[in-house]
């Protein structure tokens, strides 16, 4: 982030409400623009706060990112602004890609996106002529059925301009949660072990089987009758957006949920409630009774970050210490302890019942951890990119970004400086696909969702923070003044004074409805409303739908067809 903020000559923020969602990084960008004269192009249907600092704000129609990016790349090629030597030396598949981009002349891009042609030219010039240029995005790009295509197209743009592997350039997805990067790195995904080692790779399977004491040869007994650990599965597992519907389909029978609140954070809340209602067994490990705990069978009290020691990995792959400041509250326990106690109980019973089919002598078969640094040693041994990241090194003040394979490795702040992971960067031809649910006669408006500065995700933490509630104490739905007038809302809203007239609107989608106070603002364009999912009584996810990107299985939160009425 530091290199981007200090060295980029231009920024292209697309689908990131940076100053509200990554506020401190947002201030770094504001500083770069204000004090260093960096150029800033923001592409966002909403007039988010950072647009105040933008050289140019492109207000594309929601769900038209690909025509926008392709249109910009058409102009870059038309003007000859591409980085020819980078394309030649570091990439492949350029011709096929170019053929697709040529389908998006500016007039067509303008027609689909609603952005005037001259603004497209202006944007392309800013992005192409200020190098290095950093592309920054977040969920505004990914939470679409074309999330993966959007990301690939932004990678195309950066390869075209030769902005990859450079300080101040690159593709910079901002990770939402404090440790979403780490959860992915640690194998918290259905297709990979730690450090993205595929579960389908026989060598990887063998490595983990050996380390975890499961190297006892192929199994002959039917999986269902043999309940002890019987080898690692090489079948790619289910994503959260597949597990939940799987409950009603009779595929998912139990869930062990650690610090997550699907009722608030998953799409189509009603469907999630029905699913959780039907589950056979739900263990929830949490710090608060959440909306999800209503459906839990067992509730295990874990601890907050102030009560634990371990590491978080930030959006730039920087691994940092979390240090215990206070004793665990009440009878709550360290989360790692709880998980390992469950594991031990299952293993002990099975070993006794069935005569020990696990090789307990294997170095990492067991679950007797002294503390979290002990667990980190195991991670070091099995995770190439974390091989040299130990608590001991972090405690001496070393600043480490993975990949950091060995104890004497200094870490890697910038990836792909000499080559891409796969060798050459491959241009992918990307075509526009319209969103899954667009407004129609019955649901004529478009809803997008997200968070606000003062709250966090499902709101379990921030709704319990007094001061934050004083500033932002209820769900607000952003409504454009034109729509407000049409709907008959009282326009004299003054949000900051807290003296706003009650303008409660009902927003209805095919799946449910919410009622909340309207915030009349031109942050949203006419025809669009914006809601958050911080408050259970008016959570946007009552309305959203579970149409997924076919590859990433990410839901299309950013586009839902709704109707809006004054209550």
């Amino acid at each position: 982030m530091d290199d981007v903020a200090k060295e980029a000559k231009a920024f292209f923020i697309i689908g990131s409400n940076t100053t509200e969602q990554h506020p401190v990084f947002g201030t770094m960008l504001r500083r770069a623009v204000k004090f260093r004269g960096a150029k800033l192009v923001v592409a966002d249907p909403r007039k988010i706060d950072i647009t105040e600092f933008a050289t140019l704000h492109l207000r594309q129609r929601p769900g038209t990112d690909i025509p926008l990016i392709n249109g910009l790349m058409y102009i870059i090629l038309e003007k000859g602004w591409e980085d020819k030597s980078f394309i030649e030396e570091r990439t492949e598949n350029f011709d096929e890609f170019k053929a697709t981009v040529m389908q998006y002349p500016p007039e067509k891009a303008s027609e689909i996106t609603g952005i005037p042609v001259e603004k497209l030219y202006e944007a392309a010039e800013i992005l192409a002529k200020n190098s290095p240029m950093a592309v920054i995005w977040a969920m505004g790009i990914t939470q679409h059925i074309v999330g993966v295509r959007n990301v690939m197209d932004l990678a195309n743009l950066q390869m075209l301009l030769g902005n990859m592997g450079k300080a101040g350039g690159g593709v910079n997805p901002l990770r939402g949660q404090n440790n979403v990067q780490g959860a992915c790195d640690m194998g918290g995904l259905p297709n990979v072990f730690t450090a993205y080692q595929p579960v389908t790779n026989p060598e990887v399977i063998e490595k983990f089987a050996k380390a975890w004491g499961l190297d006892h040869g192929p199994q002959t007994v039917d999986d269902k009758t043999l309940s002890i650990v019987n080898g690692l599965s090489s079948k790619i597992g289910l994503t959260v957006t597949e597990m939940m519907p799987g409950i009603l389909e009779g595929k998912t029978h139990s869930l062990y949920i650690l610090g997550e609140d699907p009722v608030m954070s998953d799409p189509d809340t009603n469907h999630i409630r029905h699913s959780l209602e039907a589950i056979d067994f739900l263990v929830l490990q949490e710090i608060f009774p959440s909306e999800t705990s209503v459906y839990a069978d067992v509730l295990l009290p874990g601890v907050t970050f102030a009560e634990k020691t371990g590491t978080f990995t930030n959006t730039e792959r920087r691994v940092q210490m979390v240090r215990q400041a206070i004793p665990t509250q009440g009878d709550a326990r360290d989360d790692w302890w709880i998980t390992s106690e469950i594991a031990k109980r299952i293993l002990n019973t099975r070993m006794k019942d069935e005569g020990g089919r696990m090789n307990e002598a294997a170095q990492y078969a067991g679950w007797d951890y002294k503390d979290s640094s002990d667990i980190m040693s195991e991670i070091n041994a099995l995770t190439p990119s974390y091989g040299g990241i130990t608590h001991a090194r972090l405690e001496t003040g070393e600043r480490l970004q993975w990949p950091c394979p060995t104890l004497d490795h200094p870490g890697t702040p910038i990836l792909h400086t000499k080559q891409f992971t796969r060798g050459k960067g491959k241009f992918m031809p990307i075509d526009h696909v319209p969103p899954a649910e667009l407004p129609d006669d019955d649901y004529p408006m478009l809803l997008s969702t997200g968070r606000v500065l003062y709250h966090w995700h499902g709101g379990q933490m921030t709704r319990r923070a007094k001061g934050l509630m004083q500033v932002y104490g209820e769900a607000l739905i952003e409504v454009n003044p034109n729509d407000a007038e049409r709907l008959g809302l009282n326009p004299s809203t003054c949000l900051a004074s807290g003296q706003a007239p009650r303008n409660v609107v009902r927003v209805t989608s095919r799946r449910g409805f919410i009622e909340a106070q309207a915030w009349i603002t031109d942050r949203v364009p006419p025809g669009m409303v914006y809601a958050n999912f911080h408050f259970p009584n008016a959570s946007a996810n009552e309305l959203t739908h579970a149409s997924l990107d076919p590859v990433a299985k990410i839901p299309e939160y950013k586009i839902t067809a709704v109707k809006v009425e004054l209550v």
Partner: protein
Amino acid sequence: MINLKINGQSIQSEPGKTILQAAQAHGIEIPTLCYHKDLNPTGNCRMCIVEVKDWRIMQAACVTPVWEGMEIQTHSEKVEIDRKLTLELMLANHPQDCITCDVSGECELQDLAYEYKATAPEWGSKGTRYPVDSDPNPFIRVDMNRCILCRRCVSACAEIQVRDVWGVAKRGFDEVIVAGANTAMLEARCESCGQCVAYCPTGALSNKMNYGMARAHQVTKVTTTCSYCGVGCQFDLLVKKNKVIGVQSNPNAPVNGMALCVKGRYGYDYIHHPERLTKPKVRRYLLEGKKKEEIREQRVVNRKNSPTDPLVSSPWDWVNVEWDIALDIAAKKFMEIRDQFGADSMGFLTSAKCTNEENYLMNKLARQVIGTNNIDHCARL
């Protein structure tokens, strides 16, 4: 390089550096108050004045560049007398209430007054000029009586947060720091990041959430990483008697330095919230050996009743239990489901809020112990 002398010592400095930077680079201390290394120097408090040979008036070291052949005295008698007088002038217009002031012990004005044995002159102290705690911002306590007009808050808001909430109004004795056009901070579009508080050298800007809860020497500081977004800001948790009572910027934080956002700095009170889960709980039916499908109707009834109504007893009630019981039940039910429906009938949602170590164990539990790859978290959501 430029050659100059400070207190008779010959030193070299790069051109363009200030006297203060040149001195600090050679371990020579010059007292400062309005100066902060993160902010553009304004040279308005006059604490860092030094004598420059052949110059009639003394120069503020934080804004005066070095030049060839310069000869500087940083602690001559003349300088020290002037500094003490400067402090006395500040104290003349500053409440003499350190004994109850929240920042006593970490107040830079107090430290300098102590060092220079400066006290409020008899002719000073015009009394309280401004309402104390004058702004309704829920996080930031404003007491302009304690302000020494150093303008660090103005600079921090303009240069770090880039929000320009604070400004200077009026002139002379009436000069005062105001938010916006002298309105409430939030109306002046304050984002409540607290940068101004972090840089304020006195008690003019302090934190409401822990006002009166602890003096600097009564807290332990523990450096840790924020639990909200993925930027990875670090800060110090302030701990008193096993309670987190505040968050303070740690200037050595790798990503963010002194900067924090409103959630990171002020969103910590959930830690000690009375609704925290502190006991393992299981549904009563699990203790009674019943099956979940047997009690489906009661579950619906239970949900319609008030969850806090003790008169309605249901197999779906929560029962507080010891850890062993809860863990045994969890393990036993997991084994039953695995036996009955297979490993792939089980799902594991790990947490983007938890540590790497905890996430690793969830991955190990699902894969090693259970034998499924059905593990995911909210990265997509």
